[in-house]
């Protein structure tokens, strides 16, 4: 009952992250066309779609790396539209970019310290270095090594750990499964699901691998050519044969 009560209050607070009618152009190309996406607190929201659907652009516009030409981005009550990337990060949006975003010249621990420095500004931070080393023991063993020496799976763990340390209100993950063995993907997704269930983390998960993503997501949005073509809870999306064949490829 206690959990249900918390979920109810969270739902009443409205979405943790809301993207309203967002349009992003690269010169003459419209990469995002009036896209509206909501991530509810304490849930995993998947953004699915083929290559070039605009998934990465969506995350890059949210986190301020790319400037949207229209629409708005709200983190709770705060309007982050067109704020600089570093300000958005400080506001509590942790973007783990595609290709992992490990700073390979730094050691594992130095990478983590960068997240920790950002998290230290927040009174409500939940994770400290010891917590993420517990969560990902492989990182603890390699803390003094250069991040360059890590495997793909370890790199993905490193950037998720770094993002957790930064004390995020919303975690944006761009294709965490890319180039990883299915076994590793399952492990990382399992850890993510646990964190969401245990700590009420909010995740916006961009994935081309729709089947895996929907297996852990609560809700999903499907993008095609820069537009949202479907939005529903994860189970409904996974059960929609037409949608799966047309856009999700499984």
């Amino acid at each position, binding site marked *: 009952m206690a959990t249900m009560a918390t979920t109810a209050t969270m739902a009443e607070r409205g979405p943790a992250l809301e993207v309203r009618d967002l349009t992003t152009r690269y010169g003459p190309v419209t990469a995002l066309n009036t896209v509206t996406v909501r991530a509810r607190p304490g849930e995993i929201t998947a953004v699915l779609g083929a290559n070039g659907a605009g998934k990465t652009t969506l995350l890059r516009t949210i*986190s*301020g*790396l790319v400037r949207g030409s229209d629409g708005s981005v709200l983190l709770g009550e705060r309007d982050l539209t067109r704020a*600089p*990337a*570093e300000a958005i*990060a*400080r506001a509590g949006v*942790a*973007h783990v*970019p595609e290709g992992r*975003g*490990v*700073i*390979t*010249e*730094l050691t594992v621990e*130095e990478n983590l*310290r*960068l*997240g920790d*420095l*950002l998290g230290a*500004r927040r009174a409500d931070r939940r994770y400290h270095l010891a917590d993420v080393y517990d969560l990902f023991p492989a990182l603890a063993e390699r803390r003094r090594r250069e991040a360059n020496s890590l495997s793909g799976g370890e790199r993905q763990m490193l950037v998720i750990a*770094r993002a957790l340390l*930064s004390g995020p209100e919303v975690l944006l993950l761009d294709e965490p499964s890319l180039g990883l063995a299915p076994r590793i993907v399952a492990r990382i997704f399992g850890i993510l699901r646990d964190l969401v269930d245990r700590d009420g983390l909010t995740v916006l998960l961009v994935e081309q691998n729709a089947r895996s993503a929907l297996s852990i997501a609560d809700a999903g949005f499907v993008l095609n050519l820069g537009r949202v073509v479907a939005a529903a809870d994860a189970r409904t999306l996974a059960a929609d044969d037409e949608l799966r064949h047309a856009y999700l490829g499984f």
Partner: protein
Amino acid sequence: MQQFVNVTLGGLSQGAIYAAFALALVLIWRATRIINFAQGSMAMFTTYVALVLIEAGHSYWLAFGAALLGGLVLGAVVERLVIRPVEGGPALNAVIVTLGLFVAFQAIAALLFGSSFESFPAPFGLSGFRVGEFTVAFTPFSAFVIGSVVVVMLGLVALFRFTDVGLRMRASAFNQEVARLLGVRVGGMLTLGWALAAAVGSLAGLLIAGGNLVHPAYMDGVIVYGFVAAVLGGLDSPGGAVVGGLLIGLALSYVSGYLGSELVTLAALAILVAVLLVRPHGLFSRAAERRV
């Protein structure tokens, strides 16, 4: 034997200055991927500031501090006003801009301070220590030169290794986008990098000037040797810059001592070409690629 000792000691103290200068180039290269050809001119400028203060009756040390502080400010201002607008554009644009600054600073210095040779004092004695019956070519000022370069180097290592701001600077240098996503104000870190580099460059300028003559072009030779030292060390590696500086200082001192001083510039060029042929990324760089 005595000549060998003298030539070696002279090479070491000269090399320490090249090391400081190379360090300044490496700091800027790491932060912004720009070779700052104006480094020498900027150092010359702040050395003139020190000279003006000394001639106005202030102590050497006050002038020394003012020149280093002036270097910090000058580096920050140059980055903000001149380099920032061309950052992110083609790499060549920034290089041309630093070449422009190189000329501009010399011209401004000639206007403000005149273009005649002026002598610059040294804070310590310039006659060699006596060892037994010999006088070696190692002076109290040489000791100061080497000591201050070592102090600066250790200070930079401590800054980058052990402080939060050092970590943020390295993150900004290695991966601007990821640094921004981690809340680092990359612009501020780049400004700080330029400021620090210009201060280290100013130190090199002051050390070259000590007990010598200064004029608006007195740093030109040092730019060449400092650049060779930086490339020798691999441009990305502060430790490499220091080793490169010492090596080039020693090598040129041997060439000058045993072969003839007119061959020094040629020797520097030969060393540069030889190193680039054998190790295109320098002696200490781990980088597999370089965007030039």
